[in-house]
């Protein structure tokens, strides 16, 4: 399956679909958290999930590398097809899925070990035996952190500033060269300068990786994303179930949304 994806910058990105995610129902125990989210994520694009708190955008993102498996009572009706394989098929090992679909979290979460070992962590997990120094340097350069840490690779990852820690986490995630990078509000704990650096970085990373990002910051989605999915909360059946209202190229979502909900949310009509 392939979908023509229009990038915001105007040039048409004829990317083939890397992830085809279709969540018809997602439960945590008896609680129906998300329904009707269907996105096709093209190779080499950035896809943003936006929407109010509790709309299930993080939950939807965490479906893409089976992080939700850790939550008790998690059940999914639907499929997430990655490179032609449903990652929720019985025979699939979620651990292996996560090695191909990396994740950057809301709070920077480096391990309590040296900067070098943080970046080398994933490589060592995968049993990488080659030249470790080069791979670590390459990852740190890709994360635009190398110049700031090259003289103190042995000091703790926790000694860095918040923005540096987040870039370290990005370096750690891309060191193993995953196909997809999921970012769950990666800038929400950072100041505007650090945020700007991460956004610049995402544009660089896009050349090599496919990125899906959850963000509260509408401007950020506008700045970085090719495609944007707008999720909203449905309270009509008594619960709080998130669902997807609209999924379209970012320019279209922001300039000419089809749905009234999207229009209202983006213009700040919802308080």
């Amino acid at each position, binding site marked *: 399956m392939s979908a023509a994806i229009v990038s915001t910058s105007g040039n048409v990105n004829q990317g083939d679909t890397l992830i085809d995610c279709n969540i018809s129902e997602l439960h945590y125990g008896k609680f129906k958290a998300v329904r009707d989210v269907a996105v096709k994520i093209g190779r080499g694009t950035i896809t943003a999930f936006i929407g109010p708190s509790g709309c299930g955008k993080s939950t939807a993102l965490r479906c893409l590398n089976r992080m939700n498996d850790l939550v008790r009572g998690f059940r999914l009706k639907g499929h997430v097809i990655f490179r032609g394989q449903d990652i929720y098929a019985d025979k699939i090992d979620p651990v292996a899925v996560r090695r191909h679909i990396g994740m950057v979290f809301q709070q920077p979460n480096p*391990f309590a070990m040296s900067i070098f070992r943080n970046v080398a962590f994933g490589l060592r997990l995968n049993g990488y035996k080659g030249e470790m120094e080069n791979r670590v340097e390459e990852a740190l350069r890709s994360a635009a952190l190398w110049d700031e840490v090259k003289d103190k690779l042995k000091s703790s990852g926790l000694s860095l500033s918040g923005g540096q820690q987040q870039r370290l986490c990005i370096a750690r995630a891309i060191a193993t060269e995953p196909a997809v990078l999921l970012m769950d509000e990666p800038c929400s704990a950072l100041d505007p300068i650090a945020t700007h650096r991460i956004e610049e970085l995402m544009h660089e990373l896009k050349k090599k990786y496919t990125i899906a990002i959850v963000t509260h910051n509408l401007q950020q989605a506008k700045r970085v994303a090719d495609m944007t999915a707008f999720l909203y909360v449905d309270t009509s059946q008594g619960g709080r179930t998130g669902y997807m209202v609209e999924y379209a190229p970012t320019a279209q979502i922001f300039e000419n949304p089809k749905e009234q909900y999207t229009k209202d949310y983006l213009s700040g009509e919802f308080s």
Partner: protein
Amino acid sequence: MAVTRGNVPADNFAIDLGSLEHSLRQPRSLFSYVMSFLTGAATIAAMVPLFSVLYLLIERGIAGLNWAAFTDLPPAAMTEGGGFGNAIVGTLVIVAIATVISVPLGTLGAIYIADFGADSKIAAAVQFAAKVLTGLPSILAGVFAFATVVVVTGGFSAPAGGAALALLMLPTIMLTAEEAIKRVPSRMREAAIGMGATPTQVVTKVILPTAFPGILTGIMLALARAAGETAPLLFTSLFSEFWMSRTQPLFFPKTVSDLMKPTASLAVLIYNFSGSPFENQIAMAWSAALILVTLVLVLNFIGHSISKRYANH
């Protein structure tokens, strides 16, 4: 203070400037001073017995300390000289056995109750049992090891003493390790899982290294307590007037039969000699007590510096 609001500019509110000053006439300042004094006084009161015991120990113990104390066997009644070299070796061996048993069991158990089996009924039961066992009278640990090791193997031995001490160390190690593991931020766990680490890799590569200083502290606490225990050893290792092995180095045990016989320990030597009517033996008990305390102190320093060096890496 007559304060009128509304039409008066904020600057003109009357403030009693005296109320801003530090003064014992102010109830809040007075209360604060009194409480500060009380905490200081309580600290000193708590230190008096601690330091007087230490002072007495050093004063009485140092007199009998000489090279022979470390190299010679315990003196018989009415004789001069002698030492407690075999008791030092015995204590080290028994405590080492206890550590080898209790550290893996305690740490692995803690991993289960804090991580893999958290919220399970087994974990809750084990945790409850461990809490109860921290209050176990140490003599019962001795009776337990007597029944399970001494009776089964047919005699008093160093491993029997080690088993008794291990039983005392286990709950402390398990509960402190559990706390240390639970203190590892869940986002580090999440990061490792997100990297594609298996549950075992999450534990061995992230959780244990991060929790290591805390786990080590628990081990040191347990060790310090166990090294000074007398009652559980009376039923298990008993005492010996002889070296564990006839051969150097240090007369450490080299064969199974070296281990499987009554073994001297500092704690039991102190117990035996402190009640003795002979001055030489009483002096020896004081010196042995000083060495025991020093030994625990040294172990603590080593543990502390390991965890500090580890934290810096």
